[in-house]
């Protein structure tokens, strides 16, 4: 799984790496060069189809002048957690809207992070409600590449761990 590869390559904390967390997603986005290098792995780990197949759950609508599209990409083997394990890819005007799932099965989006919604569609509509005219989603954390990202972590690791607050 590419996210695991990303976590291992970039992460220095040594914590167990798991798929699908925000941290791994960010690492991927923050490291274009690395992402490129890992592109074949990404392709291999993705579900075979990126378009909704017949019978698959999906939505595609215009809501308040914005096109919101989404489809379920995978149901992973985390069935032990009940609702957990369902993954959706959602876009607003073609740009990815990152969704996260709560343990109760509800959904929250990157735009609206302090409450959750019953379905991915409801979360996407709520995100549109919050977006101003002419405002577009963007890829998270553009700019620094992986090296600087690691330095950033290093900066915040620095100072205080040994002595000041310990």
């Amino acid at each position, binding site marked *: 799984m590419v996210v695991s590869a990303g976590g291992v390559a970039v992460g220095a904390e040594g914590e167990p790496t798991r*798929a699908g*967390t925000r941290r791994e997603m960010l690492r991927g986005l923050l490291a274009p060069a690395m992402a490129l290098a890992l592109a074949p792995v990404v392709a291999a780990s993705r579900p075979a189809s990126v378009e909704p197949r017949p019978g698959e759950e999906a939505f595609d609508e215009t809501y308040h002048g914005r096109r919101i599209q989404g489809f379920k990409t995978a149901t992973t083997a985390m069935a032990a957690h009940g609702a957990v394990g369902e993954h959706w890819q959602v876009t607003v005007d073609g740009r990815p809207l990152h969704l996260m799932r*709560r343990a109760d099965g509800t959904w929250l989006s*990157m*735009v609206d992070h302090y409450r959750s919604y019953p379905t991915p569609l409801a979360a996407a509509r709520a995100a549109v409600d919050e977006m101003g005219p002419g405002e*577009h*989603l963007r890829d998270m954390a553009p700019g620094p590449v992986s090296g600087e990202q690691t330095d950033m972590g290093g900066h915040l690791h620095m100072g205080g761990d040994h002595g000041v607050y310990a």
Partner: protein
Amino acid sequence: MAYTRKDVSRLTSAEKRRFVNAMLEVKRRGQYDEFVRLHIEYYTSDGEDGLRAAHMTPSFLPWHRRFLLELEKALRRVDSSVSVPYWDWTRDRTAASAPWTADLLGGNGRITDHRVTTGPFAYAAGHWTIKEGVTDGKFLTRDLGRARDPIALPTRGELESALAERVYDVSPWDSTVTRGFRNKLEGWGTGRGSVAWRNHNRVHRWVGGAMLGGASVNDPVFWLHHAFVDLQWTRWQARHKGARYLPAKPPGVGDEQHGRIVARHEKMPPWDVTPDQMEDVSRIYRYV
């Protein structure tokens, strides 16, 4: 010698000016955007697999305590007289009250696009361009009170319902628990509608704009809000003598929360510090 964190409504003009100037300098140095990124990076939800250090988790309080200390350290490198003030949203409850004044955080966003146009953090002032936002907007946004679908700030009674809890947190240690101080304060509810979002979460929603999203740190009020949340932890400890951070020990291998939360003596990423070490910080700062 411990320094103090003050009620933002009681800062002198000079204290406000120095706080604002230190914030702008930390932003100018590029450090501020690192804090924004870090907060995004550590937001792992409880419906996902993975370690939850910052939200929907017992370490919500010590993680943010440490996060505030890091920002405060950056501010104090600029001006050693500065600390993070707290916003008591049970008292200062309108868009006209502290901290929304032109000499501190500036006021509400305008109706058309929620852009903040007053105060030192207004885009036109030239010192506060959003670089790590959820959207491509370069300006700070707010929608105080949520004009389209109004909500109120949490009441004193709502806060009291959290402080009255006798245990710090309970299994399964996530956003679904209905008992325990941590989630009553963090504010994840069950059911539908705005009553389901309480205390900490409700304040993020009341401020709106940038504060609503994953990049909420972009609004300087993030720190004032979290200083007040942090103060509640101190108050809760004082009220429930001897009550400690829970869980004391990590959930076992067979537990669904195994490896997903931080126990009292485990390190809290990204720092080399445990919740236990964050429980008493009275020698670093105190609230006045």
